[in-house]
């Protein structure tokens, strides 16, 4: 696998949220505003890149690997939790408003399955450089996916797009034009489940089509 493939696989082909369906809790909870999704994405990017780096560093050398492997789960937990505490403190100090609105979900990055999953599935038996690229790609893929969810929810639910703090794009004219109110349901929990459900269905439909095409090609190739 080339470096480019390794980086971009997390975007679409192995997207941690949309294809592997990991990390649902933050994807559902913080996606009421694009601003929140971006903040969450950066926090996950920071933690995932560094945790992949640290995990692959402690399992890279054979001698250290022998020592770490039997107790790897507690070791990974401590590494990830320390990184999350760093993010928590940095965010509290420099972005207090964002920290308030993300609330519980910053410390809960510790138990985000994506981070643990990448440590276990990838960083544990790859070189540090590769692991960092994998982590960055996966985190950006996750961020793009939660930005997509919050885009749908915020546009439909509040009629606006909050990119960062005061950079708000007002789309209420669209609703005025249609003569309806924004659909408040999309800002509520049920809206989160419905949005993610439809996005996952769309992904499944695309996957089905791609697979059907592949099979058709294979059948054609077989006939020739």
């Amino acid at each position: 696998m080339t470096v480019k493939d390794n980086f971009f696989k997390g975007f679409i082909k192995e997207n941690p949220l949309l294809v592997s369906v990991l990390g649902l809790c933050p994807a559902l909870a913080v996606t009421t505003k694009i601003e929140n999704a971006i903040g969450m994405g950066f926090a996950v990017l920071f933690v995932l890149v560094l945790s992949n780096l640290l995990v692959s560093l402690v399992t890279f050398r054979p001698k250290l690997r022998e020592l770490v492997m039997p107790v790897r789960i507690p070791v990974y937990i401590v590494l990830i939790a320390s990184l999350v505490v760093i993010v928590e403190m940095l965010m509290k100090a420099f972005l207090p408003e964002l920290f308030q609105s993300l609330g519980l979900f910053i410390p809960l990055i510790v138990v985000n399955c994506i981070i643990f999953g990448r440590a276990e599935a990838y960083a544990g038996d790859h070189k540090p450089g590769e692991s960092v690229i994998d982590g960055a790609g996966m985190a950006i893929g996750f961020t793009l996916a939660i930005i997509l969810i919050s885009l749908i929810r915020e546009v439909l639910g509040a009629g606006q797009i909050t990119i960062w703090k005061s950079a708000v794009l007002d789309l209420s004219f669209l609703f005025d034009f249609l003569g309806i109110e924004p659909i408040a349901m999309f800002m509520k929990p049920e809206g989160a489940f419905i949005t993610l459900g439809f996005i996952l269905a769309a992904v499944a439909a695309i996957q089905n089509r791609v697979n059907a095409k592949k099979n058709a090609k294979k059948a054609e190739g077989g006939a020739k």
Partner: protein
Amino acid sequence: MSGQSLLVIAFTAFFIQNVLLTQFLGVCSFIGVGKKRSSSLGMGLAVLVVIVLASVVTFAIYNYVMYPLHLEFMRTIVFILVIASLVQMIETIIKKFSPALYKALGIYLPLITTNCAVLGVALTNINEGFTFGEMLVYSTATALGYLFVMYIYAIIRERVSLSPVPKAFRDIPIAMIIAAILAMIFSRFGGLI
């Protein structure tokens, strides 16, 4: 939420602020395990025990060790370690005393460590500044709410798995839509208070 009567705390945690449907804690296990009634019940009971025990232990550690020593910032690390070792301990105890139950719970026990609901409740207890009694009621009600919703959800999904669902919606997407409908129902309980 602090300072309210225990009944209000229990009702809010069980219905209105349901841990799965409005706080989105533990949704991973919800979607993954809630396919069958038996497994959802096993997972729900195991989570109940772990949430209550973890809440009591983390509450004690925070208020009697970490707060006096000004180590509040370490709570995420300490809490996750407490939860992990607690889960390990419960696993060992169940394995020793009730092999049948151990077999029934199987893979769900170690999975509880990474269940957001456990860490989430432990952190909420601290953030809300609960007293010991409030903490106990809140964590028990939350865990019972988890068990209750998980079980209802598994019943619905068992039925849905037999019905003709559009191909793209099969499995997880339809599970999300079911969760959305359940969330709508549960959020309306707010009108009762």
